[in-house]
């Protein structure tokens, strides 16, 4: 029996059609511009406060569509896009420091569609505006920091065992300590190797030039680097959450890079300052007059470079021990940061201050920075940019310890309330385990995003229209079949992308347009073949059958090779290229389904097992 499909094939097509419709529908409901309100203390804002915001918005002529509470956050939906920024400012001013106010786009998918957990495609940054950062984690600095901490602990150990050492030095992944005699060195080696099993030890020199060299094992280096990246990811997530951005993305990329995307962020400078800040604090004692030089360091004051102080090299605690921090003003109206330490930090601080009442304690502000310099190769004349990381340390306060300090205290000596607020935020969200540098940045203004969407959609529509007309003109009735299949193809493509949670980007739209153009190819192949078979004198039914049959291998071969290229594109690509590859791959698969099965089903339904004299093709 030629040109008849078993019932299950029709049912399968029907099921795919219905599923495709359900999951592509949410994209027809545009998202509402909204502002998102969450309490700064992590509690839910009260209804009373929301009502105050609403009435303030109405007073300013901003139309509120609805407000709702979800996951402890309030969403106020607005009618107009233009009101969004204005509304945020009004709400932020009204609620003050109680709440974090952020811009958001709220899903407007109707309830019955949400019941199928259908949701629209996420729009990429190029379509909705925002910032994209690519950050490089400085792995060498992560190593150095870890070695410094170890060196500090080793010195402590040696002092408590009364072993005299002269100098400690950190270079690359090795840490070396100089001793005055081989005997001291051997004792130290025994002690240290017991407590620090991660090192490989070698002894160099003898007598007065004795030296103990400790190198980190490969495995430990890997562990430290993994830890640094993961710690940085956590910290960045905390910071981004503090910024109050809706749907932020913080993701690892490759061995040492992190991608941060903040949709809808307008103030990129502030965002960058918070994301990239490497500020941390160190608490140290001031050196005594009789402290050996090897144990001291001199630092200048941040706000007065002329003043300096001699500090101990050993750190009591760093900002990492801070469990919470907030900013306020002291009795003289100067900005201050109130700090609460965690258990260990509190104990360390208490122990250090208890035995040192009357001495001065310094708070050091530490920032990792980098400087780019252009180096010209004297031989080739080639210019390369060398990035030189450096650490800036400055004293922010030096105060006498009046009594033993406990878990909570405050620090002053900051330049401005903004600085105090940012320092508090950074201490709260944790410090970065290793310094990071911006290696790539994209800021897309919201107007460009809206324009990209508009143009992208327009080109899809026009492209589609041209295709439909072309197919109708060329293949008549069969053109209708192909066009229905094309529409179905677009529906399924959008549905699959929505289901996979793929992000729609501008190159993604280009991918859709291109896929549509190529999608008709399979039908063109089949229809041309049918025409040819008709010319060769085959009967109508036989021609249809042979057309589909013979075009099949061509279609499969051609599509598989294109699919291969798309997959490679996906695996090597980043950002925009990936978006394109995803749409192209999905498009190839869906177009094969619609072109082969769907048009065949329609052809079979129309012509199958009927006496047909002439085909309108």
């Amino acid at each position, binding site marked *: 029996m030629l040109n008849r499909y078993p019932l299950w094939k029709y049912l399968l097509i029907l099921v795919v059609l219905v599923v495709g419709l359900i999951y592509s529908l949410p994209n027809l409901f545009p998202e509402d511009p909204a502002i998102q309100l969450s309490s700064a203390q992590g509690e839910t804002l009260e209804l009373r406060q929301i009502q105050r915001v609403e009435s303030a918005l109405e007073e300013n002529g901003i139309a509120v569509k609805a407000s709702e509470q979800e996951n402890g956050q309030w969403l106020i939906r607005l009618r107009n896009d233009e009101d969004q920024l204005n509304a945020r400012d009004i709400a932020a001013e009204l609620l003050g420091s109680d709440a974090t106010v952020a811009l958001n786009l709220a899903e407007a998918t109707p309830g019955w569609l949400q019941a199928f957990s259908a949701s629209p495609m996420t729009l990429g940054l190029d379509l909705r505006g925002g910032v994209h950062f690519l950050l490089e984690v400085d792995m060498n600095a992560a190593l150095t920091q870890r070695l410094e901490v170890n060196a500090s602990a080793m010195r402590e150990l040696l002092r408590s065992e009364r072993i005299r050492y002269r100098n400690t030095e950190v270079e690359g992944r090795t840490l070396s300590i100089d001793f005055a005699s081989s005997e001291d060195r051997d004792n130290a080696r025994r002690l240290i190797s017991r407590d620090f099993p991660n090192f490989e030890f070698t002894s160099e020199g003898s007598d007065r030039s004795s030296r103990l060299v400790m190198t980190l094992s490969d495995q430990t280096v890997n562990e430290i680097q993994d830890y640094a990246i993961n710690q940085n990811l956590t910290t960045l997530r905390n910071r981004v959450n503090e910024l109050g951005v809706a749907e932020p993305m913080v993701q690892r990329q490759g061995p040492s890079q992190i991608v941060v995307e903040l949709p809808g962020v307008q103030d990129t400078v502030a965002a960058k300052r918070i994301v990239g800040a490497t500020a941390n604090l160190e608490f140290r004692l001031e050196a005594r007059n009789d402290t050996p030089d090897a144990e001291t360091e001199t630092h200048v004051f941040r706000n007065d470079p002329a003043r300096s102080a001699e500090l101990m090299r050993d750190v009591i605690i760093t900002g990492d021990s801070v469990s919470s921090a907030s900013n306020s003003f002291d009795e003289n109206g100067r900005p201050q940061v109130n700090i609460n330490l965690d258990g260990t930090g509190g104990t360390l601080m208490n122990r250090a201050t208890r035995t040192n009442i009357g001495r001065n304690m310094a708070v050091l502000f530490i920032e990792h920075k980098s400087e780019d310099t252009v180096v010209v190769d004297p031989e080739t004349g080639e210019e390369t940019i060398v990035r030189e990381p450096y650490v800036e340390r400055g004293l922010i306060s030096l105060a006498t310890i009046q009594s033993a300090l406990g878990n909570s205290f405050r620090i002053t000596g900051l330049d401005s309330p903004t600085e105090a607020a940012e320092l508090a935020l950074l201490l709260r969200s944790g410090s970065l385990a290793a310094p990071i540098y*911006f290696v790539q940045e994209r800021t897309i203004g919201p107007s460009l995003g809206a324009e990209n969407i508009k143009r992208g959609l327009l080109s899809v529509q026009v492209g589609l229209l041209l295709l439909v007309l072309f197919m109708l003109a060329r293949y008549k009735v069969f053109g209708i079949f192909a066009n229905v299949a094309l529409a179905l193809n677009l529906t399924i493509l959008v549905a699959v992308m929505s289901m996979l949670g793929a992000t729609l980007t501008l190159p993604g739209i280009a991918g859709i347009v291109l896929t549509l153009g190529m999608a008709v190819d399979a039908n063109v192949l089949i229809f041309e073949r049918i025409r040819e078979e008709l010319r060769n004198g085959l009967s109508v039914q036989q021609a249809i059958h042979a057309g589909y049959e013979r075009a099949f291998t061509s279609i499969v071969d051609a599509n598989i090779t294109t699919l291969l290229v798309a997959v490679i594109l996906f695996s090597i690509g980043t950002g925009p290229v990936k978006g394109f590859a995803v749409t192209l791959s999905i498009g190839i698969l869906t177009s094969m389904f619609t072109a082969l099965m769907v048009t065949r089903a329609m052809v079979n339904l129309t012509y199958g097992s009927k006496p047909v004299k002439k085909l309108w093709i």
Partner: protein
Amino acid sequence: MKPLSNLQIDFMGRRNLAFIVSAVMLVVSIGALVFQQLNLGLDFTGGTLIEVRYGAAPSLDAIRQLMVESGFRDVSVQTFGASTEVLIRLQQAFDPDVGSDVVNLLRSSGENVNLVRAEFVGSQVGDQLRDQSGLGLLVALGVVMLYVAFRFQYKFAIGALLALLHDVIIVVGIFALFQLEFDLTVLAAILAVIGYSLNDTIVVYDRIRETIRTSRIDDMPQIFNEAINSTLSRTLATSGTTMLVLLALLLLGGDMIQNFAIALLIGVGVGTFSSIYISGALLLPLKLSREDLIPTKKAIDEEEEELP
């Protein structure tokens, strides 16, 4: 268009002309690549790019002068799309606040300036991308060649590979010749061209294989002619539809995907030409013969049975 399907064009007879045309295009392309080089985009070179929108069309020279006076080096200023949109490129090392610095600087002369986008790519990333992209192209070509060798025969694989190289070199060459900006999206377009042109080539090869198996004559050029002629209307129809939507993309899609659309348009054009002329005609010097495709005895029997 119907008469087209009855046409019998002697493609193979004119293959030398086609080879000359191709050779000229290749020489020009390679020449452009060597002497003019590609105008690589920010993605590959690294640097800073700032796009701003003015209230009224500004004078580019004034902007350039203002920037240079303020200590920016290697500044390039051009309009982008509309005359009120200005694209500023800085080759200098990155400074986190450069976007807002530039906007503030431009605003200082009393103009209404808005930041549309700011992009920064570190030089390392650029190098990395360049290596990765080159590798990606090679892997794509290699995998595709393996597939063709597996599905057809190695001579087809060589023909397809040469045809693809031909297409890629000409598209990249035209970008070098006209100094169009070559960025990541253009690279994506070129990979798509590989996919597309291959698609075309495979369809022609498929038909050549079929014709060799079914036809009784041994004259290869004639067989190729027959195969190409019978797929010609399909080839042109598909190129036509693809070019239609690409034109829509080029004219309506906006500035950010203009180069993408251009690369694909050229690629589809060249790809169509190469799948008609180059990939088929290349099989002649490769001495493709019926023996290369004659399958085992059993397969022939099946083939015969299928024929009415």
